């Protein structure tokens, strides 16, 4: 098991390398000359050249990339042009906010999707199944940001159960988390259902029944544990998506998360911040996938031992 985890983490290195290379290239080849922005319009060629040399911009691409990587590894993502603060500090402020909403949304996803998917599968082709499945169809069809606005309208504006926007208390987190949770629950419930239907046909489910086990043990232990294996893979991908994809929600609910930071920085052309947050976001997606792989191995012994 430990060997498996180590292998997964080692395999992460080339992925991260390629990812940083792509991010770095985007900004290296992006139009606009950083030197003339620093130096201003009226600059002598000598001063221009010395600034270029000072920031290492006269070096070839690969050297510049390696220097960039060195500082990234040291935890230095550069300094924000707009706020003149280290980028890493700004990200440290914003990332936990996004993670809070994302993980709460993730929890809601699980709490809704698993029971709904299992019940729909067990009660296949009954009214309960049709109800669950049409609900999830609706859920997959509604965009997250629109669902967020609907929730805001009814539960914050009309019913006044929750604050409309902002960040600070747990009550601020509920609506955006539900917007994420419900959308993801819809797609996950469908996956749980089809996976359960497949598993319920298996011989070992019949064996479990032939042992005289309680029906709930047959369903929730013997069948569900097998049915979750493909769901975990999907959830790993979704976890990354949740963290990286809550940009629209953060804007609607005025939440100071990393998605919002990135959008604001793009609009302000604060490239070091954009670059830094891109690296942090993509890394967290990669990390989420590794977590899914590890979880996968915990559930399925056939992967653990091969």
């Amino acid at each position, binding site marked *: 098991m430990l060997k498996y985890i180590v292998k997964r983490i080692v395999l992460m290195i080339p992925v991260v390398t390629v990812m940083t290379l792509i991010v770095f290239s985007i900004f290296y080849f992006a139009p606009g000359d950083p030197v003339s922005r620093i130096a201003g319009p009226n600059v002598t060629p000598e001063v221009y050249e010395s600034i270029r040399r000072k920031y290492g911009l006269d070096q070839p691409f690969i050297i510049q990339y390696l220097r960039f990587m060195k500082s990234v590894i040291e935890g230095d993502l550069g300094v924000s042009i707009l706020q003149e603060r280290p980028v890493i500090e700004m990200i440290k402020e914003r990332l936990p906010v996004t993670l809070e909403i994302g993980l709460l949304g993730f929890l809601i996803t699980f709490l809704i999707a698993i029971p709904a998917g299992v019940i729909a599968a067990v009660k296949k082709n009954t009214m309960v199944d049709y109800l669950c499945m049409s609900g999830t169809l609706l859920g997959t069809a509604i965009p997250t940001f629109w669902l967020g606005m609907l929730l805001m309208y009814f539960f914050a504006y009309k019913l006044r159960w929750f604050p409309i926007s902002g960040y600070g208390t747990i009550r601020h987190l509920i609506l955006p988390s539900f917007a994420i949770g419900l959308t993801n629950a819809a797609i996950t419930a469908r996956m749980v259902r089809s996976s359960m239907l497949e598993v319920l046909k*298996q*011989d*070992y489910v*019949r*064996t*479990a*029944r*032939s*042992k*005289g*086990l*309680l*029906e709930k*043990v047959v369903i929730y232990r*013997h069948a569900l*544990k*097998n049915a979750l*294996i493909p769901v975990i893979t999907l959830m790993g991908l979704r976890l990354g998506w949740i963290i990286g994809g809550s940009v629209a929600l953060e804007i609607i609910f005025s939440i100071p998360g990393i998605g919002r930071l990135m959008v604001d920085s793009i609009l302000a052309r604060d490239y070091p911040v954009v670059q830094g947050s891109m690296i942090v976001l993509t890394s967290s997606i990669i990390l989420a996938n590794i977590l899914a792989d590890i979880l996968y191995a915990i*559930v*399925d*012994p*056939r992967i653990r*031992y091969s």
Partner: protein
Amino acid sequence: MNEQILRINDLAVHFYMDTRIVPAVDGVSFSVSRGETLGLVGESGCGKSVTALSIMRLLPSPPARIVRGEIWFKGENLLDKTNEEMRKIRGNDISMIFQEPMTSLNPVFTVGYQISEVIMQHQNVSKKEALERAIEMLRMVKIPLPEKRIKQYPHQLSGGMRQRVMIAMALACNPELLIADEPTTALDVTIEAQILELINELKERFGSSVIMITHDLGVVAEIADKVAVMYSGRILEQADVHSIFNNPKHPYTQGLLETIPDIDLPRGQRLKEIKGVVPLPDEIKVGCRFKSRCEYVRAECMVDEPPLMQVGSSLVRCWNYA
């Protein structure tokens, strides 16, 4: 010995498909005495497994429904039991071994867990005691290093080993009736012999009755006391194992016995077969079910189905003995 543990009367199971109703089992009756082994023989699709699953009340419903009959087990009709009462019987009083050892064990639980689970379900024992019983059961089914094996997962075991685990699991609560549905079909011949010997040995030890479902008459000869030959949802012949092998009455039973390859057969000579295939139960409207493949077919076979008749010590469903 003569006490009947199981008595099935006129069992009929229909499958309600989209466009038609298939009578998979159609008026089957037989009994099993305490300590006795009944061989239930027939080609694929003749209703053997459906009969077995009916006893366990494990048929998928829909599409299957038991439309007629009684299944008496120790003086109680299993068809009158509630689901909960039936659940308590399964794995405890009646248990079952399936054909496919490769897929019949749950891949995500250890062998030890899967055996101890059935013990904990039916008997009031602690987890530790149940695990100890599981080790004991593995030792009984002759799995080496049982202390190590209980921590392993099914994919780490061979097919023969997995079937031994299935047997250990089935016998863990000392059931009075064991139903083995083609337990050796998926295994090598050498492993098959070992498994049959094991079932025989454990049956003696526990005094259980066994229903051995198979299409292999070699298995029947090895293990059964009496034999019921099924065809297209009906029993065609029922007799003790000696009568079946030495004096088969029904043309179908005779045909089955002739299909056993003879090692002295000259090279190049074709193996015997029964021409044709088992008709689907809903394809036969009138007459004997075996008529289209029978060498001794007569005029009345086309019109009326023969009843099960007593001929000597056997029960035979054939007009040639009327």
